[in-house]
């Protein structure tokens, strides 16, 4: 499978990365090199093989569904580019 410039534009949009039109041919080329490389997997027969979900066989640890930590709104929002009253500030989303 190989990707064309239109697909690259769509993927960039999904990945939320701004890509200039002039960059599309280069990116398509680079992605195709990688996608061609992974094509080798088509040689492998995976009939009746389960996908690996955990590298070590263990039961998922469970705990009571209660709050055990938290309450640091200030510590969390201090890393933001813009915050006010312990809220993250973003450009206006609703007119």
């Amino acid at each position, binding site marked *: *499978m190989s*990707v064309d410039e239109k*697909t*690259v534009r769509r*993927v*960039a*949009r*999904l*990945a*939320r*990365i*701004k*890509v200039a039109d002039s960059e599309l041919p280069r*990116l398509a080329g*680079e*992605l195709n*090199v*990688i*996608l061609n*490389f*992974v*094509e*080798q*997997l088509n*040689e*492998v027969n*995976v009939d009746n*093989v*389960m*996908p*690996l*979900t*955990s*590298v*070590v066989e*263990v039961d*998922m*640890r469970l*705990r009571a569904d209660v709050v055990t930590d938290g309450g*640091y709104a200030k*510590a*969390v929002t*201090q*890393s*933001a*580019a*813009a915050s006010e009253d312990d809220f*993250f500030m*973003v*450009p*206006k*989303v609703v007119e």
Partner: protein
Amino acid sequence: MTLTALTIAQARAKLQAREISAMELTEAYISAIEKAKTLNAYVAETPEQARAMAKVSDVKLAKGEGGALEGIPLGIKDLFATKGVHTQACSHILDGFKPGYESTVTQNLWDAGAVMLGKLNMDEFAMGSSNETSYYGGVTNPWRRHNSNKSLVPGGSSGGSATAVSAHICAAATATDTGGSIRQPAAFTGTVGIKPTYGRVSRWGTVAFASSLDQAGPITRDVRDAAIMLKAMASVDLKDTTSIDLPVPDYEKAIGKSIKGLRIGIPKEYRAEGLAPEINALWERGAQMLKEQGAEIVEISLPHTKYALPAYYIVAPAEASSNLARYDGVRYGLRIPGDDLIDTYEKTRAAGFGREVQRRVMVGTYVLSAGYYDAYYVKAQKVRTLIKRDFDEAWSKVDVVLTPATPSAAFAPGEITDPVQMYLNDIFTVTVNMAGLPGIAVPSGLSSEGLPLGLQLIGKPFDEETLFQTAAVIEQAAGTFTAKNWWA
């Protein structure tokens, strides 16, 4: 006596005997770091914090108290969250990020009495094999070819960690390994690096790249130091549901144990076409070293080896694209204002991520997108099951597997520009991550050009002890390797 030349084990003995103080040792490292700026190993130095920690250590040591690493100065890869200190995964997008919390690994180290010297350079978000993708620039390998003053890369992604340990500007360093990022740079710099079994070390507070593959471990000057460091880093952590509830053994006890009767597997598939004769010779010498100490050499087959790297380049970018979705210009670091929220995301991520990271996020986004998920991601996870099955079968015949660590010695910056060519650096290490197994790189000789070369030992899940036991035998036979100091 040069204090910075001491291994952890040697420094520990002198600190406990009060022959040296933690402050003297720390000052020696701070001054060595000052003189080694040209290597670009550190991206943030914390001398004041180091002195404060050393002071506390000296009080404890004077009372005959203190932890397993009391007063030992360490470098920390920039991927580990350190409270109030530069933590940016060497990415532009995390500009100015100083977390309000500490990673479990670093907390374990501080609890054991270690001293923090600063944060170490790395490939951006641990994506790279040469440290060239760092926003803070490349790192220089302390090693150079015979009769050459040309700079070489230290490998990646833990390039700063490997260089700092090799150049004696920290006693040991933390590192992480998703496809070979501990073992490849260790091999390139003549240092020891171990990636433990997935789940042995908590991932909590470590910036995530590919969550099903990421695992932290140490880079050290010798095998004993790696055992000391891993014991301190490993823990059972309720904050990481993938951390396994098993006691952490005293790994140091495995060193010096006889390997008589141990079965060493040599996987024939690793003798891939184009394996450099020098690497093949090193591998044979390594097997000979183990045989001379009574081990039995057994040829084995790991038939799906060649598919590990292509499967990795689906799984790792897929998980990365998901993990890196959080860098949106809202919650951390860099923000490039746009016309609206989406435009802000897109501009921030275009400016904040380097080329390699963008490439991988886009590959990951593509393979996870509607209509492609089964063909790529699910298929790759199935191939992973087959890779793991190869090893499961091998363990009925052998106790440990011996392979080369890397296909070559260190190369020059700019020498490899094709991404797939760069990925091939991980060809011997990546299977280990795909199967979740422990692997150690141990320096085993020098190339004809005078550069360090390493061998890799792969173990059964949670059998790090056999890796230390076997690696110590190789080290005993091959010796340790120290770069000539040309930078200070």
